[in-house]
């Protein structure tokens, strides 16, 4: 058996083993799934449109829960960047009954502090804001938050889950989705249904003005004090001048400071209906019981409206864009982003294989050339983003080794791309990359939480839980000439945006090294 055959068998066996419960595998005649498409996923669709994907799997008695709403940064109007992410934070604050001792009293304080916030917003927008008045109003809002807090039970949602042994309670917001996840001991699975249904039905956006400050701190940590964060934000902002992919999901400070409770409520009402929610539950579970609880706890939720369309399209780029970002860093780095089509395009599988062929591991082309042979960089990455559903970027990131420059690295990179334009990669090289991708995918599925993420994301964004498995099969079918074609078609200089991080040499000044 040659290496490729061993690998193919290995991956099929691993997939079957990872995904089938022990009882099923014990039956000699039970069909063995040869791909993720044959997983015993049970789909439950409630009358209100809410979808559940249930997958039992072997392992410790734990269950992973993922609920994904198809709402993210692309759904934010200009001036409200960060709204989806702020809402994600606020949905951990409790409900009309969880996290409060008197929700009516709380709401009375909300009205008063929101009125002060409205005055604050207007003053900030004035041509010459009165800083003393701004400070006075900010202090007033803080005092009113304290008054409202007299009626709250802080972090009650988190505490209930924690004392029941939950692990990994968290959430994330991307350009296209907001995802909440947690794992529970299997005997406590019903707790998730009770809490999540209550959170969907009766959220209270308490502690809004304090949480706004928390998000500003998160932004400072992830973007403003991190070379990678600064570069990524600058790349998106300059590559997408019109499309909302150019907006930072975490928001810009002036927008975050101006968001109102009414906007938060409206965003929740608009995007958190049952039909926009997709749930995946994976682990030591009884699908019949899960289906019953789904109906019992979520069946009476209103369906809500379908997700609004994002109709804006980025105009064609008509020339290379070069941007410099100055930061207190020890050396330069750069992101190069080429405009490429969405995941729905026929070229998407070949572009995904290309990303691995260029920078997926030690044997990739760019790693071998730039890191090992010419020693121009310490590291190189390739990825696509910031989302999947709209035309996006193929992003290559490089960190030059002193004394080499971004320009030298870019020249070597251009040479590699030109080589692919002239000559397709060998079938052996493409096959190796495809096996690496498949192996990585199978191993990620060993985690219940990983599987739940894949099922929910696939169904929520692409319409079918099988879609990402189908995409994997399309990647496995990519031929060398497909790689050559997508390089020729998409890697054009007039579609390129380059953002270079320039180390600050003196205060207020930057210079390339």
């Amino acid at each position, binding site marked *: 058996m040659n290496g490729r055959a061993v690998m193919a068998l290995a991956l099929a066996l*691993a997939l079957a083993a990872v995904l089938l419960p022990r009882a099923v595998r014990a039956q000699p005649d039970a069909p063995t799934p040869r791909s993720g498409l044959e997983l015993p996923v049970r789909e439950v669709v409630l009358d209100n449109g809410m979808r559940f994907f249930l997958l039992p799997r072997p392992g410790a008695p734990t269950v992973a829960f993922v609920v994904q709403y198809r709402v993210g940064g692309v759904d934010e109007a200009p001036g409200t960047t960060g709204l989806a992410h702020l809402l994600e934070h606020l949905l951990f604050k409790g409900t009309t009954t969880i996290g409060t001792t008197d929700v009516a009293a709380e709401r009375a304080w909300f009205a008063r502090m929101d009125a002060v916030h409205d005055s604050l917003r207007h003053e900030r927008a004035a041509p010459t804001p009165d800083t003393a008045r701004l400070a006075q109003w900010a202090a007033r809002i803080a005092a009113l938050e304290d008054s409202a807090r007299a009626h709250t039970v802080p972090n009650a949602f988190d505490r209930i889950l924690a004392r*029941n042994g939950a692990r990994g309670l968290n959430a994330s917001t991307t350009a296209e989705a907001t995802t909440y996840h947690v794992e529970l001991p299997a005997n406590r699975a019903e707790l998730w249904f009770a809490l999540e249904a209550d959170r969907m*039905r009766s959220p209270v956006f308490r502690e809004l003005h304090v949480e706004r400050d928390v998000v500003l*701190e998160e932004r400072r940590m992830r973007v403003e004090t991190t070379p990678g964060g600064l570069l990524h934000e600058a790349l998106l902002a300059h590559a997408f001048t019109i499309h909302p992919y150019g907006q930072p999901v975490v928001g810009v400070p002036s927008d975050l400071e101006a968001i109102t409770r009414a906007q938060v409520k409206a965003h929740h009402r608009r995007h958190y209906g049952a039909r926009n929610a997709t749930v995946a539950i994976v682990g030591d579970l009884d699908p019949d019981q899960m289906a019953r609880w789904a109906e019992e706890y979520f069946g009476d939720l209103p369906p809500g409206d379908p997700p609004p369309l994002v109709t804006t399209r980025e105009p064609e780029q008509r020339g290379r864009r070069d941007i410099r970002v100055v930061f207190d860093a020890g050396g330069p780095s750069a992101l190069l982003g080429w405009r490429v089509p969405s995941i729905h395009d026929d070229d998407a599988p070949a572009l995904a294989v290309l990303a691995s062929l260029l920078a997926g591991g030690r*044997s990739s082309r760019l790693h071998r050339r730039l890191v090992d042979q010419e020693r121009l960089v*310490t590291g190189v990455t390739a990825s696509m983003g910031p989302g999947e559903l709209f035309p996006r970027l193929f992003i290559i990131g490089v960190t030059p080794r002193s004394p080499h420059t971004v320009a030298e690295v870019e020249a070597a990179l251009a040479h590699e791309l030109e080589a692919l334009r002239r000559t397709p990669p060998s079938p052996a090289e493409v096959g190796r990359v495809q096996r690496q991708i498949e192996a990585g995918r199978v191993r990620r599925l060993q985690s219940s939480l990983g599987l739940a993420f894949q099922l929910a994301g696939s169904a929520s964004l692409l319409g079918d839980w099988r879609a990402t498995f189908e995409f994997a099969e399309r990647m496995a079918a990519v031929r060398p000439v497909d790689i050559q074609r997508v390089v020729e078609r998409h890697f054009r200089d007039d579609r390129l945006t380059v953002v270079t991080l320039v180390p600050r040499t003196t205060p207020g000044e930057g210079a390339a090294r």
Partner: protein
Amino acid sequence: MRFRSIAVFLLLLGGGALDPLPAQRPDSAAPPPPEGRSLVEALTFPPLHFDPPPVREAVVLGVPVFHLDDPTLPLVDLLVRFEGGYAHFPRADYAAATAFPSLLRGGGTRARTPDEVEAGIDSLAIQLTFGSGGGALSSTLNTLTETLDPAVQLWWSMLLEPRFDTAVVEVWRGRRLEEARRSGDDPATFAFAHFNRIMYGDHPIGWDLTADDLGPAALTPARLRALHRQIVCRENLTLGVAGDLRWEQAVERLRRLIEQVPPCPAPLPPQPEPTLREGGGVVVIPRPLEQSVVVLAHATDLTQADDPAWFASRIGDAILGTGGLSSRLMSRLRTREGLVYSASSFWTTPREHPGLVGVTTRTAPGTTTAALRLTLEMLEEMTRTAPTPTEVAEAVAEQVNGFVFAFDSPATIVARRMTYHALGLPDDWLERTVAGTAAVTPEAIREVFGAHLDPSRMTILVVGDPDRLDAPLETLGVGPVVVIDPATPSAPSGSPRSRR
């Protein structure tokens, strides 16, 4: 050779046995609670039926071996741990010891070039990890049962017969030199490295790779091979096997593998005992950043042991700052004040030398002193007043109810047993942990924090912009404020140090 039962564990996992907060449940005189909370509080949970799989402990040719047979998946994990990390050797060997994981993984073997090794890994679809710390070198192999023997043969040759290909060594050296140049790019990593240097001085815990460590003499073939002989040898070895391999199938294979491992030329040099900075004070490393990184801690001599004080320290630490959003630090600094995105406490309790108890967080320059003042107040409160029974019950319930996650995979279970063995902990440590955790009381927490935590002894490091602070750091009252050069930060001179 023996198996351990986990009876205590099973008992405690019984449904609802550790649900705390009776005070929060509605009493009969109160008005009916609103629907959402009442639904949640009315839930009852069945007992969790779970038999943790037994781990076999054996000695094969003098080498401790841990084995867990789990045929659920046709996969086998092998795990090795060789005692001997950089902390056992002089600074001249620091770079070489640090390089081992990368060079064993990518540097080829005596019989195969790096490219040939890569091709072998690719064709067998195996997954390998290599890692090292101050105390040990570790590696894991994950393979399908079907390809077990060729996979183990390749992996074993990578461990035992490394080529240390000179081109690969040079690439590693160049990358680490560049990383040293960029050591300030991530402010948090920068702060932690310098805090360790300030606290531990010229002890391996305080070391950080610099250009001086990475000179041509640091990574010669002779140095790498000499170090390899001292670490990768039989007396340093512990082995683990988990997955689809019965003991009867495993034992002869293990014997053949161990026979290939040479005896150690000499016992490992002991790790030096650190002398930690004492006396408190504030150190500032000025950086033009939009957010300060704050680390504060002092030495502590509490040691991990089957001791009520140690279990109390774990639960107390969870209440203070490792318990997520519900911890005191997060509840106050984030939820109430909006000063931080994240804040956490840490209390390290090494078996062989003093550890650190402290806090780390990040906040805007204009709220740095306020956040530090609140943090010190919360630390002081932990020393004076016992946590509430509800806080303790919740923290205990979180640990005990969530212990089932300790059995996520066979490899996790075996790796944990190998760690217990390395630390000299009893092999029923998990059961003891469950029992010890469940027995923690509020007063025990107050006692252990009162005995081991002293906010006035804190060394506080602030990496950030001192010109934009909300108030002078001197107003914290924890000692002098020393500003050091960000280009060459080092421990403030004359810092007194403590030795346990």
